[in-house]
């Protein structure tokens, strides 16, 4: 079984507001001293892939579209359990919208070889358009299920569990299938073992460019982007919280109930 996991390296989304700044020129977050990490749901996707590998002996390939810094994220993926990693580092991809990125990813996946499952995070920890998985499925013309938390393989059939508004669904799918992964208690990203980090550090990661993938340059880059991002700003919020006091928690709770009654909320 062959699994491809698409990962994106982003600025750590857990940084506090005080360290979150937007560059008005590029209209993107400033990295500053903030570390770069694998986008959280992509890490869950990697975990699902590695669990399937441990259970069914699958081969896992991690692919990322990025730059020089992305090598560290791919090495991290290798140390967590991916067998191979590929970087698509093509300057002409800069400014691409989600369709452009999905197109490049699709070409890379096709070049990497036949696969049964393609896993991505359900949304990225930064821009979060939630669009790349859908576009990727269309490019590859394969089945697609979003918000998948668990994947089972039974007798060559893939059954996924996906979260919906009022519960979850079990869906049977033909392969190849693209599943966009969301988190639950079974797919928390594992920490890499130190010895695996050592081994991964030694591995070579191929870097592919537009020419290697045969990319149609008309479909990538800022020129092909269908959406123009005209502004990104941090909204100023006014906050006014009425703190309820009391000598005991019970007193505070009683006062809260009274206040809610006053506001006609209960």
């Amino acid at each position: 079984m062959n699994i491809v996991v698409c990962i994106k390296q982003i600025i750590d989304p857990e940084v506090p507001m005080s360290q979150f700044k937007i560059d008005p020129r590029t209209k993107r977050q400033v990295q500053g001293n903030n570390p770069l990490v694998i986008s959280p749901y992509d890490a869950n996707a990697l975990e699902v892939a590695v669990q399937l590998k441990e259970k069914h002996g699958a081969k896992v390939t991690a692919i990322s579209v990025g730059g020089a810094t992305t090598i560290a994220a791919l090495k991290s993926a290798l140390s967590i359990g991916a067998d191979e990693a590929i970087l698509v580092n093509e300057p002409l991809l800069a400014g691409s919208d989600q369709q452009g990125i999905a197109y490049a990813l699709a070409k890379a996946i096709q070049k990497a070889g036949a696969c049964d499952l393609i896993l991505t995070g359900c949304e990225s920890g930064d821009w979060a358009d939630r669009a790349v998985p859908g576009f990727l499925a269309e490019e590859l013309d394969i089945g697609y299920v979003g918000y998948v938390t668990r994947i089972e393989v039974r007798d060559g059939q893939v059954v996924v569990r996906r979260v919906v508004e009022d519960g979850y669904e079990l869906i049977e799918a033909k392969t190849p299938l693209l599943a966009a992964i969301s988190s639950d208690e079974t797919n928390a990203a594992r920490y890499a073992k130190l010895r695996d980090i050592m081994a991964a550090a030694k591995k070579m990661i191929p870097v592919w460019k537009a020419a290697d993938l045969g990319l149609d340059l008309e479909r990538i880059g800022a020129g092909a982007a269908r959406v123009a991002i005209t502004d990104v700003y941090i909204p100023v919020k006014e906050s006014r919280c009425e703190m309820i006091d009391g000598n005991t928690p019970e007193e505070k709770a009683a006062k809260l109930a009274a206040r809610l009654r006053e506001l006609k909320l209960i």
Partner: protein
Amino acid sequence: MPGTLVLATTKDGRLTRDALELLAGARRLKEKLAEPVAAAILGAEVGSYVPLLFAHGADQVYRTEHPLLEGYQGDAYVIALHQICERAQPTVVLLPGDVMGRELGPRLAYRLQATFVAEFIDFDLDQASGRLQFTRQTYGGKAMAVVQPRMNPVVATAKLRTLEPATQEEGQTGEEIRVDVALEVSQLKTRLIEKVQEEATGINLGDAKIVVSGGRGVHGPEGFRVLEELAKVLRGAVGASRAATDAGWVPPSWQIGQTGRNVSPELYLAFGISGATQHVAGISGSKHIVAVNTDPEAPIFKVAQLGIVGDWKLIATKLIESCKELLRSS
């Protein structure tokens, strides 16, 4: 006929609140673009919804019936919508920002070679260019982005519980267009085997007037039993932050936040929730937020209107008592 096309969804024999929010959005777009509003309704038998759609502002309804459209299946819906759009030639397609809409949006945009806009909370016409522009949250709710589609059509998902739902008006009518979709089982790449409901109090999170929610500070699944009791007393729904669902204390479908549900209740009670921006993004439509947390520095206090620093369990337990009393006496 150019215009706005809304994907209308139904539940238990009624139009969903999502559909009404989209229709309201479409009507606003009508004012800006001076183009009619159309609704697409998909299912096995959907005739009864047509007059409701007219009453809520649709000028046209694309009535699309096919046995394979009973219940959402990704391939079937995208094929059907594609065919509807080929007929309707909309300028803007509005989809709900729910699991279905988020899946469909990019797929439909691809097939229509349209611009895709994700999860907008507002839109307007840019004064300078005269083009439509959308505002959306990004960076986990920390920032706002303003985006302008460079080309039409536009397929956009609307963040739910942000727009005010459309109201019903008497005597409205419109044009019903029946669409025969060409759709076969062999085109469907996935199949639903089973659906499992996981609602706590039986009240839908998206519709509830009161939501009781728990986070990391609840420290385990047992704590949620207390919150469920409070929700029952208040006749509300129970939700959770991502910390609680990731830990497996409650099902993932209870998650409120950027990845999970958006809610806009009259009253949102947050117990042991720190207030990370991606959670706050899911509750921004709430009219009143009450926060209970042991940490006075917790970011949730910056968005709440009422706050208590204290042990969530003692407070929730006492609150159940106090509310029962108040409700008895009234």
